[in-house]
């Protein structure tokens, strides 16, 4: 219990600045404070520090300007949830969904959207890390929650697959936050490269985004399109 608490105290104290972390952990050692009380104390201090930081506009700009909108866009734009469910079903049962697409088309859609999710998650993490360094982890966490939970509604039916979706968002986001915190802003050349990569990823997802629907229309010989909501037969 005490060892677990000590590890948790060390982990929580990492949210503090180096000098303050040393002073606080030194105080605990001198005072002989261990276990749940030390954990409560350090969490209390971290919470107060975070509350102070959130009185400034930067964390709110990062939250409302990047974490929430990009997270929601990411979950809506990329049909990654569908693809992951199909991949999961194939992996666990060896059955391939009849999507109407060829295997080459499915792999292309999967690759394009996976790259898009990874890259956009990294970009969002990097933006959060460089915009508001000390609140980046809170904002990064909220971004991952929004991107995962707001994914297409039927993904919720497949909750066991959600960790995989979260992983695709979480890992690049954590990497982006760390790099954003360390490097701050991008140079002109890197910014240009990043912009080009963003455009390429956007083009590739736009290009392949309509393939699943087109395949269903083709497979149903137009019946799906004719019966689609908002369309008269």
């Amino acid at each position, binding site marked *: 219990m005490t060892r677990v608490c000590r590890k948790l105290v060390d982990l929580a104290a990492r949210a503090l600045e180096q000098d303050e972390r040393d002073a606080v952990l030194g105080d605990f050692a001198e005072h002989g404070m261990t276990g749940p009380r030390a954990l409560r104390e350090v969490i209390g*201090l971290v919470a107060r520090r975070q509350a102070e930081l959130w009185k400034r506009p930067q964390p709110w700009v990062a939250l409302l300007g990047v974490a929430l909108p990009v997270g929601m866009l990411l979950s809506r734009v990329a049909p990654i949830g569908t693809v992951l469910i199909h991949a999961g079903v194939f992996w666990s049962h060896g059955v391939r969904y009849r999507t109407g697409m060829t295997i080459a088309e499915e792999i292309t859609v999967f690759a394009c959207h996976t790259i898009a999710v990874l890259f956009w998650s990294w970009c969002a993490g990097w933006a959060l890390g460089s915009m508001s360094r000390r609140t980046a982890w809170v904002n990064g966490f909220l971004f991952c929650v929004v991107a995962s939970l707001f994914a297409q509604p039927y993904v919720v039916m497949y909750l066991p697959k959600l960790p995989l979706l979260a992983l695709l968002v979480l890992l690049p986001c954590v990497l982006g936050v760390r790099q954003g915190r360390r490097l701050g802003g991008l140079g002109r050349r890197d910014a240009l490269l990043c912009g080009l990569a963003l455009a390429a990823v956007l083009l590739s997802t736009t290009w392949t985004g309509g393939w699943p629907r087109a395949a269903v229309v083709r497979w149903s010989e137009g019946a799906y399109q004719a019966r689609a909501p908002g369309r008269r037969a």
Partner: protein
Amino acid sequence: MLGELEYLLISAAARLGEDAYGVSIRNDVESTTGRRCSTGALYTTLDRMETKGLIETWMGEATPRRGGRPKRMVRVTAKGVDAAREFYDAVSAVSRGVSWAANRAGSPS
């Protein structure tokens, strides 16, 4: 004017002099007032007071007793002494004539 906790911390730091740092200030406040002082309240208040120029802080030496970690030392500035005096005078002035302050040792007459 100072807040209540600010006054308690500045008084403890002034009393402790060269030995004023996190744990010693906290122990002093807790033993004097009988109230618990959390780490969060202590360090955020010290920061606020330093921003106001009421105290100065710096990292002191690391000791084995502290697991090799340094202390955050505290010194009250002249501005801090003035602010504490102003607070004390104000509390003394508003306490005149009230029942709980009358006939107490050390109470202002």
